[in-house]
């Protein structure tokens, strides 16, 4: 309790601080939380997923935060959310009910190298840090690297672009670690990939105008989720398919998840306020995390109530 209780959730932290905090969370909630080492980043950093489980091999909800490293509010929300899940079990009846039926797996720093780089060298870094053969430009957009419409026009073939798709699908260890884990698990029922900013809730597809077979249900759930989120601080989200709501995006995590049988696949774009972009003041971390929690709970309850 002293470790994670004294931690400041209303400031941004380095990857070392976050990983150290994870150690504290494990000590504090040993019966509920475990850490899974799902792989290593390009530069050799460990990639951790936190598993919140009451035992048994239950169907799972996957949540990842921070695949784009400069979106700091996302990783910070991930940290707050992890503590919220752990501290709410046995206290909050809705969350307890969810964890009695499902596991929650949370990857707080999906792009560790990029995140470290934003702290050390370039706050505006978005991509991974892998070297691209034949180019002086570094990094791949890990949200264009998934095997779903990979390489289409909603991504770039130029290694210098912020949306460079990489040499081949799942070329990035940060991506294939997640792919391997989810496929090996085999019972993931929802994948919630959290980004910032622009306040949107997006679902498949991004690479095609075709509507997903579950389009109506995904739309209705997005509406409920956006309403729940807005109920706390009035933050307005738009929602819809990625391609119809923002633009064509190829090779995204959400599309990959859906195509691999994970029906409840959403991308969140957390708040901005229209003034700060990626430099959201730290005082907004907790309000953002609190409203996001209501949204996550809406999706998780739906998943629990609609097994498939």
């Amino acid at each position, binding site marked *: 309790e002293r470790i994670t209780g004294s931690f*400041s959730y*209303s*400031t*941004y932290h380095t990857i070392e601080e976050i990983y150290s905090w994870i150690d504290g969370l494990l000590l504090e909630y040993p019966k509920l939380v475990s850490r899974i080492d799902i792989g290593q980043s390009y530069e050799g950093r460990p990639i951790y997923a936190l598993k919140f489980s009451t035992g048994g091999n239950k169907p799972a909800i996957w949540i990842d935060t921070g695949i784009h490293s400069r979106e700091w509010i996302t990783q910070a929300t991930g940290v707050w959310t992890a503590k919220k899940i752990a501290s709410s079990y046995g206290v909050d009846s809705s969350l307890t009910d969810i964890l009695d039926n499902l596991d929650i797996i949370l990857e707080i720093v999906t792009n560790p190298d990029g995140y470290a780089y934003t702290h*050390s*060298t*370039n*706050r*505006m870094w978005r991509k991974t840090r892998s070297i691209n053969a034949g180019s002086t430009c570094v990094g791949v957009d890990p949200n264009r690297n998934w095997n779903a419409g990979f390489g289409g026009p909603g991504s770039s073939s*130029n290694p*210098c672009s*912020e949306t460079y798709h990489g040499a081949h699908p799942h070329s990035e260890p940060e991506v294939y670690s997640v792919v391997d884990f989810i496929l090996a698990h085999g019972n993931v029922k929802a994948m919630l990939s959290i980004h910032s*900013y*622009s306040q949107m809730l997006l679902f498949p597809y991004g690479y095609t105008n075709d509507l997903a077979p579950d389009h109506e249900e995904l739309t209705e759930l997005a509406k409920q989720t956006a309403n729940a989120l807005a109920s706390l601080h009035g933050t307005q989200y738009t929602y819809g398919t990625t391609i119809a709501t*923002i*633009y064509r995006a190829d090779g995204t995590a959400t599309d990959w998840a859906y195509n691999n049988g994970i029906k409840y696949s959403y991308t969140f774009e957390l708040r901005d306020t*229209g*003034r*700060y*972009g*990626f*430099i959201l*003041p*730290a005082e907004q971390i907790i309000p953002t995390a609190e409203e996001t929690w209501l949204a996550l709970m809406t999706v998780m309850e739906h998943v629990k109530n609609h097994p498939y």
Partner: protein
Amino acid sequence: QKTFVGDQVLRAHAKDNAQLDVLRELEAMKHLQVDFWRGPSRPNLPVDIRVPNAVLQQVKVFLESNSIDYSIMIEDVQELLDQEHQDIQSATLR
């Protein structure tokens, strides 16, 4: 740390698809090294562009000459980053 002194973030509003295409042209001009925080997608959605100080006038002229409305969303990126860094240091001390 790389600095962003004098860089601004402009919020552009494209009226129609033709103006969106112009913004896409800007995105393709790699030598300017503009950084699209929010890319051109639909006329009703703003486009946020971090523009390095060195090409600020060039980009503003480009937008104005194409009649694209814009406002300054962030006056000086580095000022915000300095504030952010200061907040982190204070929190660490606490």
